[in-house]
């Protein structure tokens, strides 16, 4: 997190009155809501969450074992803030932006208490190249220079949004530490490569715009049926083991965003380790650069303190907004928002607040919508366009979507990818249920697909949806009488639907080739199935029995389209063989 800078705001120390897990009360503390405090002799980091007369309630971001009444509480007088500047990419933080690599250096493999570290290295120097000159006028948000942050990302140094702006009176290019002033304004304001921002406050922008470009994910069922826009919002609810995390990882790997902020909120340690291990080895399919060089990770795993879990999504979205301000498309994944909601619930119940539905605080819905509101496509203060797409996993207890977090999330987000335990059990991956899921962006994104993939894209998608719908209805009959009792044309429809499910909707995240599928390939694969459909129905009409149609050698090759590197040739050959083999029969 931000190392609260010395200000004249430093106030009177308080005294601990009581300790109960992550919640501590203090008396005589002169503080404002959300001020960051250091608690006890060890100086554990905490935040003011309630003030009642002389009694202040704090949530503490570290374990409180052995902390006792009577110990001091020191107020920094600053709200919980993050450090923003070069060095955030290729980093991994805990929920309050402490770099986990630095913590490991300082305290070894286990997370000890009372250690603080700045979010970005204050000593490291970066090469600052100014884009303004003396005499230029700059306003809040304006870009004053650039820094090569990683192989793939050029960091833009901006006038902080809470500055007044003015005329540049001095500007220096060259190597500087992030705390050194690189640009000075006539009103005395000094600009460094680093700025601070309170995490619970959205960074300002000029206006929100309607998103019209898809966030291409490389996942067929998403790009093909339920796309999310750049600047859009999506929820992935599902019981344990249904594929939330793998889907989020797939998006973090393959989505065509400029920047990825991945928030592991109250989930498994090894899942974060997996990302740390895999990402540096993987290439961004768009730029060919290592994926890690566009990624910022925030890991507050399930066994780390619960208060920091509450704050980690805010830390993540603030970092996302900062890169958006530079004009980048940022994708933020939060796995899982339910753990964040539960952290709210845990703290709320220790505060003895009136519980709402299922014990969640009454402000649950408000917090969720505030969070997703920070996503969007924006016209930034500096006139550039940027976006934050927010994709939240939801972990409903018992897999029951009627619970408060799922329901409140669904009221806000525009894309719903419903995971299905039954599909997961039969290892149909990704286990996204095509009947329940939806995207409200399809209409506004269609022009993009028409222009960039194929004119026929929306129609072909509709065809697939229709076949799957029909299959759903036919399956109900099959359950009663068996497949062979259906008329031949319906049997054939079932066969076509099976190919849509097995060779198109299914996609193996762990296969080197299949893991990523371009929109062109997605479209072409569905085209091959449509070819089979058309040729097969022609054959049926010409009197060929359905078993013979199903049995042609070429048909099972549809199932291997996904794993083909050289898919264009494979698919066109396959379409030829299908036509040839079927036409031979009549």
């Amino acid at each position, binding site marked *: 997190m931000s190392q609260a800078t010395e200000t004249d705001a430093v106030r009177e120390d308080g005294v601990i009155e009581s*300790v109960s897990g992550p919640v501590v009360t203090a008396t005589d503390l002169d503080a404002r809501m959300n001020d960051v405090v250091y608690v006890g002799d060890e100086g554990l980091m905490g935040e003011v969450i309630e003030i009642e007369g002389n009694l202040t309630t704090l949530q503490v971001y570290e374990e409180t*074992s052995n902390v006792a009444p009577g110990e001091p509480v020191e107020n920094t007088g600053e709200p919980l803030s993050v450090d923003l500047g070069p060095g955030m990419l290729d980093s991994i933080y805990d929920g309050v932006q402490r770099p986990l690599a630095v913590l490991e250096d300082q305290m070894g*493999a286990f997370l000890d208490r009372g250690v603080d570290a700045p979010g970005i290295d204050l000593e490291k120097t970066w090469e600052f190249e100014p884009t303004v000159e003396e005499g230029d006028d700059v306003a809040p948000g304006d870009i004053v220079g650039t820094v090569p942050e990683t192989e793939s990302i050029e960091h833009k140094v901006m006038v902080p949004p809470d500055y007044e702006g003015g005329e540049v009176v001095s500007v220096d290019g060259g190597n500087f530490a992030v705390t050194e002033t690189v640009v000075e304004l006539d009103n005395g304001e000094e600009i460094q490569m680093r700025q601070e921002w309170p995490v619970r406050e959205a960074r300002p922008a000029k206006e929100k715009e309607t998103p019209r470009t898809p966030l291409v994910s490389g996942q067929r069922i998403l790009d093909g049926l339920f796309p999310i826009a750049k600047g859009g919002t999506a929820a992935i609810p599902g019981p344990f083991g249904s594929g939330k995390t793998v889907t989020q990882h797939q998006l973090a790997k393959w989505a065509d965003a400029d920047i990825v902020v991945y928030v592991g909120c109250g989930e498994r340690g*090894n899942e974060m*380790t997996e990302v740390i291990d895999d990402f540096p080895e993987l290439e961004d399919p768009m730029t060919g650069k290592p994926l890690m060089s566009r990624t910022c990770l925030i890991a507050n795993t*399930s066994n780390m303190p619960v208060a920091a879990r509450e704050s980690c999504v805010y830390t993540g979205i603030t970092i996302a907004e900062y890169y958006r301000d530079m004009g980048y498309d940022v994708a933020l994944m939060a796995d899982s928002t339910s753990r964040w909601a539960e952290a709210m619930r845990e703290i709320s119940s220790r505060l003895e607040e009136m519980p709402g539905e299922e014990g969640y605080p009454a402000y649950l819905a408000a917090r969720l919508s505030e969070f997703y509101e920070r996503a969007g496509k924006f016209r930034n203060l500096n006139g550039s366009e940027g976006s934050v797409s927010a994709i939240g996993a939801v972990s409903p207890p018992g897999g029951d979507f009627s619970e408060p977090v799922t329901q409140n999330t669904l009221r806000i987000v525009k894309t719903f990818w419903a995971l299905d335990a039954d599909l997961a059990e039969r290892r149909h991956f990704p286990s996204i249920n095509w009947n329940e899921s939806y995207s409200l962006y399809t209409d506004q994104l269609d022009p993009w697909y028409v222009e960039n993939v194929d004119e026929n894209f929306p129609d072909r998608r509709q065809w697939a949806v229709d076949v799957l719908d029909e299959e759903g209805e036919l399956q109900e009959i099959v359950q009663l009488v068996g497949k062979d009792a259906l008329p031949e044309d319906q049997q054939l429809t079932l066969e076509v639907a099976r190919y849509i499910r097995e060779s198109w909707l299914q996609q193996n995240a762990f296969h080197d080739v299949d893991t990523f599928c371009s929109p062109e390939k997605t479209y072409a694969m569905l085209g091959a199935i449509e070819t089979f459909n058309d040729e097969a129905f022609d054959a049926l009409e010409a009197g060929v029995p359905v078993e013979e149609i199903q049995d042609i050698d070429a048909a*099972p090759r549809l199932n291997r389209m996904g794993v083909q590197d050289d898919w264009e040739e494979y698919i066109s050959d396959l379409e030829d063989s299908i036509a040839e083999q079927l036409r031979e029969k009549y």
Partner: protein
Amino acid sequence: MKEYQTITEISGPLVFAEVDEPIGYDEIVEIETPNGDTKRGQVLESSSGLVAIQVFEGTEGIDRKSSVRFLGETLKMPVTEDLLGRVLDGSGQPIDGGPEIVPDDRHDIVGAAINPYAREYPQEFIQTGVSAIDGMNTLIRGQKLPIFSGSGLPHNDLALQIARQASVPEEEEGDDDEGSEFAVIFGAMGITAEEANEFMDDFERTGALERSVVFMNLADDPAVERTVTPRMALTTAEYLAFEKGYHVLVILTDMTNYCEALREIGAAREEVPGRRGYPGYMYTDLAQLYERAGRIEGREGSVTQLPILTMPGDDDTHPIPDLTGYITEGQIYIDRDLNSQGIEPPIDVLPSLSRLMDDGIGEGFTREDHEDVANQLFAAYARGEDLRDLVNIVGREALSELDNKYLDFADRFETEFVDQGSETNRSIEETLGIGWDLLGGLPKQELNRIDEEFIETYYPEDAESETAEEVAAD
């Protein structure tokens, strides 16, 4: 150290006492009853003037005149390699009549979280010799893989079979150095003496006791103590793994009893209950146990967890299995129907899962075709299961020849692949071999999850011709 005789209230497992000095949160407390018993407890809430104490051994016999001593430190586990071979009670006191334990160090039982940046991703295949696990839901060193069972089901047999048979194939080649011996930590929480004996007898019979540390909290031991037992066990496991280089397998049973104890304490504190009366923080609490499995970069050993839980009413949406499944790296389901059919071990592979499997199998780990074979077996078995419902309605004759093959496949899968008995130890090659044998009952073109190259290599030679003959004979 000051003594107080200031107890103001006793309520369930909790004692409230007035104090005139600051007492640390989580601090250890000793309470001496008038008849001379000493009970241990822990500070649950500390405010100036008043503390709430959770008493591990139960509040029986405590009255307002009992004296309360605060020990000024949090609960510690004395650790040493000499613990191997010892039997302790649920709060770490020896009960085997053996010599006093001379600790090497004393570790806080609330373990600090492993920094995710310091973890090493677990990838080492453990061969359990059980096909339903090795083939379909592979166990990896450093994984936390619970057994989801129900009351009266043979989960203990499975846990013991794994403990007996678990090996890492490269060990056989003898390139394992001294530093990485195998150890078992057994943490019993509220199980019956009979169940406990089942474990102890097996440990003794196989000589496993020598490399085990046993923590026993039995059904008639105090319930609150159960909240401490797994922490004692895991603290010992971490010490042996990360300081002494052991590969430690931790068996914790029964997590359901642990959770009941949490609920009891929550109720006594009059907390706002979460789902079905369990505390709202149960997810966090369980995570602080389960996440203590794993590997750490640069350290030799590992902690693998095999927690056992009995699902109340066989319902996996109950908070205990549900929250567990959300934290652990998969789960193994013991199935009541398979059990009554006599399948041993009665593992239902479909809802079972090993999340670490993908990176721990395949070429260089198990065998190149492993992932594809597993995927195909899953898909085929799921299809066969579906058809069973239909067959009940329309009869076998109404189904196509192919559908009948899938039905046969599902039957054979259960009786040949899953049902192996508790004494059979299969190598991964044997397991995959049986898998291919079963797949041979399906036509080649049905094997769409398997790379064509592997079909070429492994598909049983005679199978295709058999299938063809059958067709001809029809």
